[in-house]
């Protein structure tokens, strides 16, 4: 370990942070923009608690095969889920899948489809903001 002198370590750390941080920073800021887009039109301030409750609820108000989010996404946002057709779904927790919720078009598409499948209606801006806040906190 003698070859690992202080300068090398510092250089490595600087390079590492320098290499990663712009991506993480831009991912974070893109996601923040999306969440604030929802929260700006929501009635209440967004809440991770309500997002958690929505994720774990089982409304069974949409299509019969998809009574809840967890049907496909799995019981925890930290773990992978699986589509009904057998394709793996990456965990939704941002701490596990860093690029989650950074593309507004994608976010809108999946909210539209999956809310209709599970809730039988489109989600409100409030629900979307809560949900993303919960996933960002995980």
């Amino acid at each position, binding site marked *: 370990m003698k070859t690992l002198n202080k300068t090398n370590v510092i250089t490595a750390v600087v390079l590492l942070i320098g290499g990663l941080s712009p991506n993480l920073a831009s991912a974070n800021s893109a996601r923040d923009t999306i969440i604030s887009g929802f929260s700006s039109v929501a009635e209440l301030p967004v809440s991770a608690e309500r997002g958690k409750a929505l994720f774990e609820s089982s409304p069974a108000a949409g299509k*019969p*095969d998809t009574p809840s989010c967890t049907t496909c996404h799995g019981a925890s946002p930290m773990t992978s889920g699986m589509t009904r*057709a*057998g394709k793996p779904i990456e965990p939704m927790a941002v701490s596990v899948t860093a690029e989650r919720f950074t593309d507004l078009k994608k976010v809108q598409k999946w909210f539209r489809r999956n809310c209709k499948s599970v809730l039988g209606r489109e989600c409100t801006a409030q629900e979307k903001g809560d949900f993303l806040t919960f996933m960002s906190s995980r």
Partner: protein
Amino acid sequence: MSDLNKNLKVWDLPTRVFHWSLVILVAVGLITGFISPESWMGIHVWAGYGTVLLVIFRLVWGIFGSEFSRIETFSFTIKQLIAHINELIFLRPLHYIGHNPAGAMMIFALIFFLFGISTSGLLVLGGEENQGPLAGAVNFQVGDMASEVHTTLVFILMALICFHITGVIIEIYLTGENLVKSMIDGYKVIPKGKTAPEIRPSRPIAAASFLLAFAILSGSVLWAFSTMPPSGIIQMAANSDYATECGDCHEVYHPSLLPLVSWAKLMGDLEDHFGEDASLDQDVTNNISEHLNVYAAEAWDTEASNRFSKVSSDAPYQISATAYWQRKHTDIDPEVFKRNGIGGKGHCVSCHSDAATGHFDDQNIKIPES
């Protein structure tokens, strides 16, 4: 060797090797055609190639072989054949040193049907499977008709084999001569009072030259055919919307697996897509629809494109609801589809490794064990 009878070498080595090789290849062909899983189709095809080579060899050896291998020595007239059958009816057949008239007829019939089976098999391989030297020359419809001919001829062949074996047993019983042993060691017993004819030797060099010439000629013809690209397979442009939007939730099915009307209906029904809302933005929907319009089943002539075009009227865009799909998977236990390595009936690629290309070759079937 008794004083009265003597042994005579009747069947030369190539004829005996031919006979038993043919027995093995026909057995392999029947087993891989009727019993073993479809993934063994490669072996079936090789048994077919082997059979046709043996049949051609036998015809050539029928000219250049030693005395009793020559076709002329067992070419009988109809009169002789009827006389022989009469003898059989009265259970007193005359002794023939080589093939008797009934046996000779059987040889001609077997060779005729084996040739027909091999030829029709090659047409099925090229037409239905898009494989082999005729993949480019034969379309699906011809291959499909050849398939029925192939099966019919095989049933006739099986009947002939039964007659052949029965005939041999009857002759053994009536003449007391072990014909099976003769076909193994080549010797037959010459009864007293019968003089052995002059035995002309084989002409192996002439036979080999003839076979070589034939192999070069037929090989070149088949090779020329094989350079044609497989018929009914077109180049498909990549479409990233199709790959990602459909592929997010399930396997990306090859567009050739459903006809135009089914794809159109599926794209119109996306809000209720197999129990989920799978609607897309209008521009993405249009782009995918355009792709499907160009590359739906009608644009192809593969086995899958032809078979799955006959969709179920109840579920016109569910491939696993087609009669063909159900017939082909009827022997598979429903539990098998629940295995982790498979993940349901909609996951073709779990067992058909070439599903993404739309080929679905029999040889590429492998069912995961768990």
